[in-house]
Every structure is written in structure tokens, then in C-alpha cells.
């Protein structure tokens, strides 16, 4: 199966937050208790009960009082997913056949390392310390449906489809390169930005933290190679030199 993806187009997002609510309804997520804190953005950040949130970004403008940008923020479903790389529990975080980074709460051991390895700071943890984040409605997409957010979006600011088709269509529409097209092996959530990603609070070049890569590529193999090597060296020494026996001195 070809990889699936979401295309998020902030240019046509109207900030209605239908995606935010539809996500919570589909995933049976309870409401968080919130308070107004001087912004329409509530809750102010992703929570274990909020997989997808629309961020409202105010940018100065010369022609209008401001520019008000809306963008959906959630798990990016990286191909090179730092969370999966670092996860110590087999089967806790995994990739579905559609390319979604999904998880099994039963297998999650609650170590929360994924939160640090994620270049986008996405994973949150429920009251049992189990990972909680967007899984691209893996239960819906496996049945051929689109994720709840894409299904509910009135303007088409969130679209779901074949990843390669999304990319080629966007190129036809004049987007030279989508955000996430090549980053991290290619993201499963692509953004059609007309501005610098920085304006939307996104890293220009998101990457899995270097320590995670170094750990994965060097420290991990070194552990068993080192252990084996040390045992082998000891045995070699034993064969080569034999132990000193006190009697031999005599």
C-alpha cells in the first residue's frame, strides 16, 4: 500500500476548530477544564486529551491590523520517527501500513522517552503515563475512511490522500516544496506554507535529536560488541598467558 498523508493548507484554514472537536469526538477524548487566558486558543497546548489543535498566530502586517494565521498542529507521522527509534517497548509505537505512527497503550511502558526524541514535541501522556497523541485515526484509515479531522474540515484545509499524489498535485498548484516533503524521511503530515515555516512556529529543518541518532547508531551496537569483545579478550588473555599460579613462583 502506498503511503498516505494529510495535507494541511493554512491559507484556507478558517480557524473554526472543527477538526479539534471532531478528533476528540471520534477518539472519545474527554474535555479538559480550561480558563480564558487572553486568547481564543484553548487549551493552550496539546494535552493527552487533545491530539490535534489549531494554533492561532498573530503576525504583524503593514496593510491590515495584523495577519491572523491558523494552523493545525499534531503528530507529523515522520518516516524516520524519533519516537519509534527511541521507544524501548516493542510494539508500543509502530507504523501502520498507511504510514501512520500509531501506538498500543497496553504495550507502552510510560518511559516518556518518545517525548524527547520527537522533533515536534508531540507525545503527551495520560493519567496512566501512557502515550497519547494523534494516530491519524488509524482505526478509520485502515477501513478506508479519512481521519476525523480531514472529514470534518469545511474548507479542505486538511485533506487526506495518497502522499505522492498530494505532493504532485501541490506542485501543480504552485507549491514548489511542501513542508515535510523530504524532512525526516518525509512527513506523513505535509504543510502547504506560503510563508516561512518559522512564522507558524515550525523548525525550518526538523530533525531527530543528534544524541538519539548517535545512541542508535553507535552506543547500541557498541553495547553488545563491547560485551562480546570484553569476554573474548579475557578468554584470549587466558589462553595466551594463563593465570599466575603462586606455586609457579616457587
Amino acid at each position, binding site marked *: 500500500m502506498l503511503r498516505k498523508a494529510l495535507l494541511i493548507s493554512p491559507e484556507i484554514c478558517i480557524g473554526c476548530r472543527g477538526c479539534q472537536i471532531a478528533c476528540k469526538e471520534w477518539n472519545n477524548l474527554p474535555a479538559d477544564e480550561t480558563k480564558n487566558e487572553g486568547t481564543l486558543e484553548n487549551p493552550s497546548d496539546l494535552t493527552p486529551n487533545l491530539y490535534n489543535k489549531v494554533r492561532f498566530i498573530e503576525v504583524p502586517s503593514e496593510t491590515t491590523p495584523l495577519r491572523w494565521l491558523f494552523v493545525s498542529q499534531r503528530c507529523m507521522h515522520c518516516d524516520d520517527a524519533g519516537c519509534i527509534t*527511541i521507544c*524501548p*517497548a*516493542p510494539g*508500543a509505537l509502530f507504523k501502520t501500513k498507511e504510514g501512520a505512527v500509531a501506538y498500543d497503550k497496553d*504495550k507502552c*511502558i*510510560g*518511559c*516518556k*522517552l518518545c*517525548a*524527547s*526524541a520527537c522533533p515536534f*514535541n508531540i507525545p503527551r501522556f495520560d493519567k496512566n503515563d501512557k502515550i497519547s497523541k494523534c494516530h491519524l485515526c488509524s482505526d478509520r484509515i485502515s477501513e478506508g475512511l479519512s481521519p476525523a479531522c480531514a472529514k470534518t474540515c469545511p474548507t479542505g484545509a486538511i485533506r487526506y490522500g495518497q502522499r505522492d499524489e498530494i505532493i504532485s498535485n501541490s506542485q501543480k498548484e504552485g507549491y514548489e516544496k511542501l513542508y515535510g516533503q523530504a524532512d525526516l524521511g518525509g512527513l506523513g503530515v505535509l504543510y502547504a506554507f506560503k510563508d516561512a515555516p518559522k512564522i507558524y512556529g515550525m523548525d525550518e529543518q526538523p530533525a531527530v*535529536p543528534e*544524541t*538519539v541518532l*548517535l*545512541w542508535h547508531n553507535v*552506543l*547500541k551496537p*557498541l*553495547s*553488545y560488541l*563491547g*560485551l562480546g*569483545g*570484553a*569476554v573474548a*579478550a*579475557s*578468554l584470549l*588473555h*587466558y589462553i595466551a*598467558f*594463563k*593465570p*599466575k*599460579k*603462586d606455586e*609457579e*613462583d616457587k
Partner: protein
Amino acid sequence: MSNNMIRKASAFEILNHWVLALSFFVLMISGFGFLFHLEGLNSVFGSFNQMKAVHNYIGIVFTVSLLLTVFYYLPVSLKFSGDDITWFLKGGGYFSKKTETPPQDKLNAGQKLYYIFILIAGIAIAATGFIMWLRPPLADIRKWILISHFLHNISFDFMVIAMPFHVYLATLANPGTLRIMVYGTVPIEWAKKRHGKWVKRAE
């Protein structure tokens, strides 16, 4: 104590050694389990969730045990003399049956250095382990966790490499050593050869 034997380790030291060793092995095995998703370990630990709990709590045992060694290993390990340097220059006498090494204290130069490294690595692995486990409320906790994760694994690598040498040197390489961690006593003659300074002082 019989006349030709000398006590090298107290009962407490022996007990603590085996507590440390055992906890180390549990941590190492589960550590490998986490690193390489060794699901076969479920037959031992039940599940990865339980293995994580075991790893965490045995980590406390390991840490306490390690810190207790400070009282009896650290003072002597910090006393370095010219003899220790000579000992190192001669490779501890392990690479030739003919080499004569200078007289050593209760711990020989190699043991001292080994202990210091193990202590440092042990403290590092414990501290980073606790940071990852308990996630102190720091502003940039995600970075702290990453650093901890990295150091934890460096220490882990160091320890799993060091461990076989320790076992080898205490058993096959030096017959008669193991009994220290069983009975606590060694023959005086055996001790004089290896820890001349200490025996002299003890007499």
C-alpha cells in the same frame, strides 16, 4: 581466624558485593531487553511494563549498594603512590609470567582505577536513570532527558565492557581471588604476594 589466613572483606562487604552484582545483572539484562526489544525476556519479567518496574526499582538497590561501597573502597582507591604507577607500567604483571610488580595496598592499582571508573559510571547511570524515571520539573526537561538517555547508555556501554574483565580477573585470571567474596579471608601468603603493603600494615 586461623593463623595462616587473613580477612580481606567483611561480611557486609561480601553481602553488598553480591547485592550490587545481582542488581547489576538484572539491570543489564533488562537494559539489553529495552535496547534490542528482547521479547524473550517476557518469560522472565512477564511483560515490558513489569520489566520497566523491575529496572526502576532494582535501580534503587543498585544505587544504594554502589554508594555503600564508597565507605570501604573509596578511601583506599584514592591513595595513589609511585608503586601504583610502576604497577601500571608493568601492566599489572598480566602480560608476562616473569614480570615482578611492586608491592600493592589492600587494592592493587588496577583495582583502584577500576573502582573509581565504576563508581563514576555507576553514579552517572544511576543519576541519569533517576532523571528519566522521575522527570524532575525542569523547564527544558526534554533536553535533560535526552542528555540523560545518552549518558545512561554511555555508562551502560562502559559497564558492560568492564564487567567481563572484572569477572575474569577475579576468577580465571587470579585463582583464589573469588574466595574473598565468599569467605572474606585469603591465605596470608597469597595476600603478601598481591597486597604486600596492606599485609605489612596489618601485621
